């Protein structure tokens, strides 16, 4: 252990936090916006449409994000039409490629999380909303979605943590976020222990912060106070987010 090297890493690596957070926040936002309509289709849509959404989430969740990233970054250039199109300026750039891959990934995970939330909204609540004369869109926006979001929040916390960790893959397409900076620093100093441990500590701080933030939000939004249920929620927060999905019967 070389403390002065660790100190140097502590000075250098935080400059990668910005890019890590940018990638994480943007892809989570894009993923969330994309997943809300998809989750509604997946939960309440016609069987054929629901199955199509399932196919998307299944393929994305069943393959490593690294493969998806490389498919976009290296693979798309093989298609002549893509290279000729206006999108090439964007798709040639590693940042946009990584963002695109992460967003697609996050959307797939969030769709399944929200779908499970939507499906566990009690029937009676929806019937009550219909009885009150609310229109379908109003029911979805004012009744179903808020309840489903509250139910999905613990699982969504996992997704946020997963995305912070997943953003480290951006270092494989030359982006200099925390892991990228660490790898660069290691190749110039060849002191992997010191530098990777500092990088790990930074990630740990970020993920801990994300977990605390979701727990805070959960507590703020919770409507019932069942200590037992809270215990279960905390247990679920610990798991990676790849619950099994099955086609709608």
């Amino acid at each position, binding site marked *: 252990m070389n403390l002065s090297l660790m100190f140097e890493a502590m000075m250098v690596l935080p400059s990668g936090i910005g890019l890590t957070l940018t990638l994480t926040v943007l892809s989570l936002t894009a993923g969330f916006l994309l997943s809300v309509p998809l989750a509604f289709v997946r939960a309440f849509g016609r069987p054929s449409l629901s199955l199509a959404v399932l196919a998307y989430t299944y393929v994305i969740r069943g393959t*490593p994000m*690294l493969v998806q990233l490389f498919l976009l970054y290296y693979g798309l250039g*093989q298609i002549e039409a893509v290279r000729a199109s206006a999108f090439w300026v964007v798709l040639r750039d590693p940042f946009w490629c990584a963002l695109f891959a992460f967003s697609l990934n996050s959307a797939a995970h969030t769709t399944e999380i929200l779908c499970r939330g939507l499906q566990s909204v009690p029937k009676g609540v929806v019937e009550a909303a219909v009885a009150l004369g609310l229109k379908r869109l109003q029911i979805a926006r004012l009744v179903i979605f808020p309840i489903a979001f509250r139910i999905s929040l613990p699982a969504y916390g996992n997704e946020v943590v997963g995305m912070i960790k997943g953003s480290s*893959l951006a270092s494989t397409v030359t982006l200099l976020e925390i892991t990228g900076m660490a790898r660069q620093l290691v190749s110039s100093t060849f002191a992997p*222990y010191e530098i990777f441990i500092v*990088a*790990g500590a930074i990630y740990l701080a970020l993920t801990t912060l994300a977990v605390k933030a979701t727990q805070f939000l959960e507590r703020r939004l919770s409507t019932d106070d069942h200590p037992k249920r809270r215990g279960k929620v905390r247990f679920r927060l*610990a798991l*990676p987010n790849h619950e099994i999905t099955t086609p709608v019967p």
Partner: protein
Amino acid sequence: MGGFTAQFAAAFMVTVSLGLVSGSLGTVIGLLLAMSKSSPASRFKAAVTGYTTVVRGVPELLIILLIYFGGTIFASKVAGRYVEVNAFTAGVIALTVVFSGYATEVFRGAIAAVPAGQTEAAKSLGLNAWQRWAFVIGPQMLRLALPAYGNLWISLFKDTALVSIVGLTDIMRVAFVGAGSLRAPLTFYLAASALYLSLTTITLLSIRLAERRYPALGR
């Protein structure tokens, strides 16, 4: 795809064996850690919690890089000359660490979900600690843990792709090399995706089968 079919087949085996070895080791370590964390008079409770928190809060890629590059330095220091840690070994160690971190939490949750009355009844029957684990808590706990445990295996097989970054010739690596040499990245990465998808599908189906065969007791 030229001569890459045979390479893909070999790489598939590498990925599968990497997954199986680190998953099995991780399960054993996870079980032991969960048991030590769950026993009331545990001295390692804080240490185990620290371990799982750190492992689950740090990117898998970083753990792999740390163990591969750090391991090389460590082994060189021990041996007194330059020794390179083989990518497969580094991958197994790194993925075992990751898997055991998650598995500990899964098993701990499942142990907590087994009613306390079961342990008390076993104690009053005169079973000793090992008998209680093996015949009373273990069988019930494993069934409760099964769905979440299966998810860990799916994540594990996806995480094996990261070991290609340190040079293991797994599916991802062969796709990378093939894409470079034949200048057909799309084809090769699509083939890799198909292989990974089939792997996760097989895992998913086996979990489903196991879940049906061993449903949680008493619910």
